[in-house]
């Protein structure tokens, strides 16, 4: 097997909580507790868990927004939390993120072409029109859409725009945090297919974070089930679906199952 695009090694992240008693130590919340995994090019790793399971903290650390207290995060062999700020800026073009609410991540006063070109400008590129047009077509929109404003689009189209912005720098890794959770079922299917098509075209590695086991099982190769910051179980999706090793995974399964036949 080739070297992983992303290697997360024994990563832990703790938050200090407000002190409850003057004479006692402040309580500490371990949001992510000793988590490790590898993710190879062209592969999708799903992370499922409920709110408070640590899945979003994990995503933020992978994106370099937050530092782990211990452990290492290697992106293409480099420890991203040991890079100088300038080097991290340069490395950023190779990993990008898509969020749940595209409306919140697009500037309502700017034409979407401007927002899509944002990662390129951050790299110091100025001539971006052709790349914006190509990215828009890659996500199933038209080049002319670059001149429209976010409010002119439907929820599904806005998520396509967010994906266009994420792929415009040709990243090696895409982190999708609840990227389809806010969409209607018929639109959700279109966006999931789009993500899989783009993965095939670009050979992307995808870290796919969701609370919905059904969605994860459709798009992911391997799976991490998290609860309270810890990994309850991990492995091939098919194996976990057929033989869940934990009560919590079984609960997620029954929540996602259609109760007929």
């Amino acid at each position, binding site marked *: 097997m080739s070297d992983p695009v992303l290697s997360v090694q024994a990563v832990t992240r703790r938050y200090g909580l407000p002190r409850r008693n003057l004479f006692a130590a402040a309580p500490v919340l371990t949001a992510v507790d000793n988590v490790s995994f590898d993710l190879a090019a062209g592969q*999708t790793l799903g992370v499922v868990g*409920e*709110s408070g399971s640590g899945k979003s903290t994990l995503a933020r650390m992978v994106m370099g927004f937050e530092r782990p207290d211990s452990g290492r995060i290697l992106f293409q062999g480099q420890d991203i939390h040991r890079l100088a700020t300038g080097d991290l800026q340069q490395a950023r073009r190779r990993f990008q993120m898509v969020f749940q609410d595209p409306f919140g991540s697009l500037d309502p006063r700017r034409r979407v072409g401007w927002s899509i070109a944002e990662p390129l400008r951050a790299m110091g590129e100025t001539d971006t029109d052709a790349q914006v047009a190509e990215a828009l077509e890659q996500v199933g929109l038209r080049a002319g859409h670059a001149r429209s404003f976010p409010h002119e689009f*439907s*929820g*599904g*189209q806005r998520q396509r725009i967010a994906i266009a912005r994420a792929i415009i720098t040709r990243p090696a890794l895409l982190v999708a945090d609840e990227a389809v959770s806010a969409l*209607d*079922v*018929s*639109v*959700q*299917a*279109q966006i*999931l*297919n789009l993500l*899989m098509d783009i993965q095939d075209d670009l050979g992307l590695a995808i870290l796919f974070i969701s*609370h*919905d*086991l*059904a*969605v994860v*099982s*459709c*798009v*992911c*190769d391997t799976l991490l089930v998290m609860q309270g910051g810890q990994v309850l179980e991990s492995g091939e*999706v*098919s194996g976990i*679906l057929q033989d869940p090793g934990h009560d*919590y995974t079984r*609960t*997620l*399964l*029954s*929540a*996602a*199952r*259609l*109760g*007929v*036949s």
Partner: protein
Amino acid sequence: MIALRGLCVRTGTGHLAVRDVDLTIQAGQRLGVVGESGSGKTMLALSMMGMVPDGLQVEGQVLVDGHSIAAEDERAWRSHRARSVAMIFQEPMAALNPLVRVGDTIAEPLRRHLGLSRRDARARALNLLEETGIPQARRRLDQYPHELSGGQRQRVLIALALACDPQLLIADEPTTALDAQVALRITDLLVRLSQERRMGLLFISHDLAAVSRTTSDIMVMYGGDVVERGRTASVLSAPEHPYTRGLLAARPSLMTRSRRLPTIPGTVPQLNALAAGCRFAGRCARELPICASRRPPLSPTETGQAACHLLGAQA
């Protein structure tokens, strides 16, 4: 008990957000309403509460125990909302006053509508909280909403909804904001309450798995129309309408990654762009020439009813 006859909701621009819905909910019946955003499912629920937003016009009849409530009779609606129907919403925090203790919130309708004394109302509020299975119910009475978890808040709202013994509980996406484990417990609770109290339940959700766990009957809406209805288990296992079929196929099921998901082309159109005939015309893979102009009636199928010209064409 509670019925709709030819119910329409008309927008200010004259478009129909809900078109000709007939519906009866019997005591103890659990009816699921599914559809995507813009399908009219929330408008349908609000029209049963007399709470359709200003600027929208309700046509047709809302019948409670056989008596029609006139749209403008605000007193009748208030008494209807107090005694026969209650509603819970997706975001429980938004429906609770953050400055009022949980016990006082639940006691308010008991004192106002049932005329209970302060002491009796508090005792009854405790009983209601216990009925929803909230842990440490007595302690909760004196807590504020922010001290509770999302699932506990939803239980408080359910207790509040039950305060005046409604005949019908309308639950609009009650589990959408909750984690899977909590959502399972809330749907179990709604089923139990409906059975124990012989209370009707209108369960609105876009989550087909939650609807299949909670309801015995189902109604599928698209663009303001009821396109299919029947027993939940039969409709979900053998859907007849092309939209229901598309929705079920597009839904990620628990399978391992192997292929693309089937999709419904296009998106839910805006109200002003909907076809005059079948509202699904334009997105339907099996469209006939007649579909865009003539509206198909609900006709019997093997599993219930569906509104589709294909049903007539096959016969």
